[in-house]
């Protein structure tokens, strides 16, 4: 069994209440941080731990904290990004539902480290039950003196608020989240200035994912050096993976980073293999925005080495043969799944969720969706595949926020790795409506030298 830091007590009955959470060693980190450490020391511990942002981009959290501007007389804010809406990702919801106090404890420690007197948890609007759970947990913590004025007699005040969002995917982008939190339309801001300089209400702000904040708790309890020992290379610690798709046991798993992908899919401790005895065709390793990979490239690097679940190993080979860890939304497709249909589905999502602020994303996502719809429903032509490639190239990198890139990458990677499936849909318009392309050579094991999958 690998080490569990966040989900260690997930199966303890009543862990969502303060009483049981305390019995299992909860709020030790708050006591330790507020009574024995200075804010600078906490930031230093987090830096030492090598914790990287769990929301998708993987930016080192300690570094982000140290960038926070600290002008005199200006309030600072910590905002927790619980607007988890990436298709395939549901780890934050799980964490908030079952161990809400882990998040609240992390929020107290992090707010203390950043000197924030008011902190917000911005929860996606669809997660109404989780909002109620968090509000109940905050009320419990406040009644027990963990929040409010003069926490533990140390003179530190903290108010924690839960803010429901409207349910837009774009509000998971940090500046759009801040706009939405301020009560405006959730459009991403143009950077610079970054939120660390001018964020919420123009004040320095740090925006962190739920899991990043919860991970601060074990870092403070055990020390940053201890945390850095888990994992591999620059990917330290444990990560929650939301596994979904054609797996025997889909669900949220806590893994130590550096676990081989093959073990994650096939071992009984984790997903337990592909459901119904089918073969794996493709995976999306980190939520819908990351490139989709065929089975052989998922399990092995282009040079035949096993691929590991870590920030570096998953992105090994760039976008030509790699993908990204992203937010940890692991989706597996078996041999009966259609990549074209899946790409269209993702594209439809991004079309629906584009905020409409900058032109390439606003118009381009809709265009891609229409072309993919046409191909999927048997009306495509060969030029359409090239057209799609051209459109995604014009969106990627030319937009204000990463939603444009997120919309372009799945399409680009699907064409890069599964071009023959697209072409089959075009050549066999009638057959493709009732049948699937099947697994083809996508699971052919990679031997040694890099295979030429590049277009």
């Amino acid at each position: 069994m690998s080490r569990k830091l966040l989900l260690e007590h997930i199966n303890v009955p009543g862990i969502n209440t303060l009483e049981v959470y305390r019995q299992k060693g909860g709020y030790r980190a708050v006591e330790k941080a507020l009574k024995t450490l200075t804010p600078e020391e906490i930031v230093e511990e987090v830096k030492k731990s090598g914790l990287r942002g769990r929301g998708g981009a993987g930016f080192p959290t300690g570094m982000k904290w140290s960038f926070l501007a600290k002008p005199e007389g200006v309030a600072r804010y910590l905002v927790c990004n619980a607007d988890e809406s990436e298709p395939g990702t549901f780890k934050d919801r799980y964490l908030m539902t079952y161990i809400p106090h882990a998040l609240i404890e992390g929020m107290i420690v992090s707010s203390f480290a950043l000197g924030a007197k008011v902190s917000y948890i911005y929860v996606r609007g669809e997660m109404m039950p989780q909002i109620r759970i968090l509000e109940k947990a905050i009320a419990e913590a406040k009644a027990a003196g963990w929040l409010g004025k003069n926490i533990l007699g140390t003179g530190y005040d903290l108010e924690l608020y839960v803010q429901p969002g409207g349910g837009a995917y774009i509000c998971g982008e940090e500046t759009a989240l801040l706009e939405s939190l301020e009560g405006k339309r959730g459009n991403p801001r143009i950077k610079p200035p970054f939120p660390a300089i001018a964020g919420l209400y123009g004040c320095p702000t740090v925006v962190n994912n739920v899991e990043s904040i919860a991970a601060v708790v074990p870092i403070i309890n055990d020390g940053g050096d201890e945390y850095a020992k888990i994992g591999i290379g620059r990917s330290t610690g444990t990560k929650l993976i939301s596994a979904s798709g054609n797996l025997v046991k889909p669900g949220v798993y806590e893994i130590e980073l550096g676990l081989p992908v093959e073990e994650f899919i096939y071992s009984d401790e984790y997903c337990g293999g592909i459901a119904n005895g089918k073969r794996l065709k493709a995976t999306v390793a980190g939520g819908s925005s990351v490139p989709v990979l065929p089975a052989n490239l998922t399990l092995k690097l282009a040079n035949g080495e096993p691929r590991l679940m870590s920030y570096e190993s998953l992105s090994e080979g760039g976008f030509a043969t790699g993908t990204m860890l992203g937010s940890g939304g692991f989706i597996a497709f078996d041999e009966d799944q259609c990549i074209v249909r899946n790409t269209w589905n993702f594209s439809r999502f991004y079309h629906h969720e584009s905020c409409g602020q900058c032109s390439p994303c606003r118009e381009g996502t809709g265009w891609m969706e229409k072309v993919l719809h046409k191909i999927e429903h048997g009306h495509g032509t060969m030029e359409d595949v090239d057209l799609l490639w051209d459109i995604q190239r014009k969106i990627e990198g030319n937009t204000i926020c990463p939603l444009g890139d997120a919309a372009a990458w799945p399409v680009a990677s699907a064409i890069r790795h599964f071009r023959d499936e697209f072409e089959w849909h075009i050549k066999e318009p009638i057959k493709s409506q009732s049948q699937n392309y099947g697994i083809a050579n996508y699971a052919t094991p990679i031997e040694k030298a890099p295979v030429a999958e590049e277009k």
Partner: protein
Amino acid sequence: MSEKVKVTIDGITVEVDNGTTILNAARQIGGDIVPPAMCYYSKLQGSGGKCRTCIVKVTKGSEKDPRPMPKLVASCRTTVMDGMEVLNITSPEVLEARAGVVEILLINHPLDCPVCDQAGECDLQNLGYEHGLQKTRYEFERRTFERIDIGDKIQLHMNRCILCYRCVFTADQITNKRVHGILNRGDHSEISTYIQQAVDNDFSGNVIDVCPVGALTDRTFRFKNRVWFTKPVDAHRDCDHEKCNGKVTLWYKGADVLRVTARKDQFGEVEEFICNTCRFDKKATADWVIEHPTHIDDTSVIASNHYETLKPLHVIQPNEALQAANEIELHKTVKY
């Protein structure tokens, strides 16, 4: 913050104030290297960054940190650093990306220029002429909206809108009470006065001037004439409104003033906003003191039959290398 910084755009070095954006630095040089801007408007705070037509490539970040920027950047919102090197029209990558943006801007545009009042002075038309494709690759139905009358003077034709947000910023900043904004999201976003309430403000007419396309048009001028048949002259009057100075351009057809607009500079931006009384109600020559014919850039279709002496760009004069490169043009200015 007052010290000057040096920035090189397409090989031409210019000294600008610290904190200037790349776009404004390019405008100080002038000429072809100025990136087109559909959404940026120097008079409106917070505008820009949305249309992505002004993207440029930064090949050298600054003297201190010479790394190039990883992506193409929006020049209207990126400030210059000392020693920055920027490529605009000399970079094929930028031109290709810009052509892509233009194509994307046009996929849902109705291309009804033959019946559009903005034709001839439309930024999107100029942009499409310079960077667009011969034919569209978009073969689906374009999104359509109903036309909306905003009060009795302005009409909103959402089909043509490119969502530059200029009118939203105008409503926010020039008029006292904001009554319009964006509804919906993605490619269904639309400019709307809240529940189609009339914009009732002394300065509301300025949204017509800031609109880069024909989405907001003057109902007193609709279908009266094509702009290239009209003759613009600069004029002024003593306006009672404390914020309006009454400096306008009158557009004549024969002896009639067909419309009144604010004066626009060479980048298509109004010099000063004018009030609705000047714009909509004063349409007789007797109301105005006429100054002189309006300068129209010779690339514009309105400039046909206008004759002006060629003026070399001011950056050419102090720079000998540029003088040598532009010898023929300089010779022409001396001759005529």
